[in-house]
């Protein structure tokens, strides 16, 4: 029997002012990262509500990454500081419920860091691939 190779579905929430442009730069520079990363542009990383992350998992994501501006560089002065607190507590809670901590990540990627964006995505995809399918936050109804 042929085993289908597992390719994780990754949802990346990217801040409009930095990492989204960083992704653009990565593309312009022909840097490779897997096509399984689906980018969702948000006006600021702090726009990401914990519900977004859980809903991404429900709808079939195997990993969720949030990319924002480096601390101190937020377009709106302090948005990413709030993101940092929110994600720290949320990720800790997910871990508390026994959900693999490697499935979620927060990274700071500026508009100039195309290479970092690609490297981060490659690394995260590799990490989630190693974990396998998301079973602990899956919604069976959404399985194809």
């Amino acid at each position, binding site marked *: 029997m042929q085993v289908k190779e597992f390719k994780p579905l990754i949802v990346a929430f990217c801040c409009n002012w930095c990492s989204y442009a960083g992704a653009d730069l990565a593309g312009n520079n022909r840097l490779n990262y897997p096509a399984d990363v689906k980018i969702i542009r948000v006006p600021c990383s702090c726009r990401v509500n914990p519900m977004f992350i859980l809903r991404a998992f429900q709808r079939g994501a195997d990993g969720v990454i949030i990319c924002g501006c480096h601390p101190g560089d937020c377009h709106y002065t302090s948005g990413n500081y709030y993101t940092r607190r929110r994600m720290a507590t949320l990720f800790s809670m997910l871990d508390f419920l026994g959900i693999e901590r490697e499935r979620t990540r927060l990274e700071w990627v500026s508009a100039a860091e195309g290479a970092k964006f690609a490297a981060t995505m490659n690394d995260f995809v590799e990490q989630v691939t190693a974990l396998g399918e998301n079973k602990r936050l899956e919604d069976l*109804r959404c399985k194809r």
Partner: protein
Amino acid sequence: MRKCSLDKLDLVFAEIAKNAELYLPVDGSDGGAVYQKWTEGTKRSEKLNTVKSPKDFFFPQTEDLMAFKTEGKSIDVIDTRKAAEDFVVFGVRACDVKAFDVLDRVFMVEPQDSYYTTKREHGVIIALACNKPSETCFCKTFGIDPKEPMGDISAWETDSEIFFKANNEKGEALLSKLSGLLADCADDAADAQKEKIDAIMDKLPLKGLTTEGFGGGKTEELFNRPEWAELSESCLGCGTCTFVCPTCQCYDIKDFNTGNGVLRYRCWDSCMYSDFTKMAHGNNRLTQKERFRQRFMHKLVYYPENNDGLFSCVGCGRCLAKCPISMNIAKVMKKMGGKASE
């Protein structure tokens, strides 16, 4: 009537489980009893009753109704109904058995609800008399006798033996399959146990609670009574009472978009919820008082009016035990209607 010794009961369970799934109350990790599938070694709960009622077997909390595939402007309906398997539920109490009658009169009248009806046809209920009723019990108020539970088979338990009596063909068919394990006995064999139950029933604190003042035709008399305001004053508007209730049958139909189609399912709903009657342009029950009143008026007046005087409360006492603020139908009945004689 047939009997076997209690230490042989597991053999009886094993025999039943050969042909059908068998469910019975077991102790959950939180201390409350819950219906679970029997497998070799499953230990029966000693608790009087389960936290959730057995209505789940026929009317589960969520149930898929159908699915839709949409493409462009076209829609396909997919019938997701599956053929029901035979199953047996052991240890249902007299009150909960009566609750099936209440539900039958909703789901099995025309147009019949096929989801409920097929499960009902495939389920065999073995009802068990209550040896140790709780202080929250008041089934007698609604004419239910815990020593004579109905169901397809009635059962009585003593310290050493268990007695079975089939009440219909379905029950007789099951008992005949167990004939190798059961011995015939006189029809009055369980009478001593029945007397013991009667003696306890006489001591229950709610024994005097009556349905006097309730029933069909009492709408006008009860609806505008000032007591509703006071009774509902601290109601949180949660759905605990409705979800543990064996007779509450209101449901919601919802669509869930799975990303590759639409699943239409139904789930229990509660008249205590603020959005129960909310429409696009308003709500005809705006405050908790009205929603609270609806629940009790439905059980004590509207339902009996439509169902030959049958109340849609069976006195199982679950809401008495579980309401976060300890407001319940017994308090409502005492305040609004006949008084319990001490």
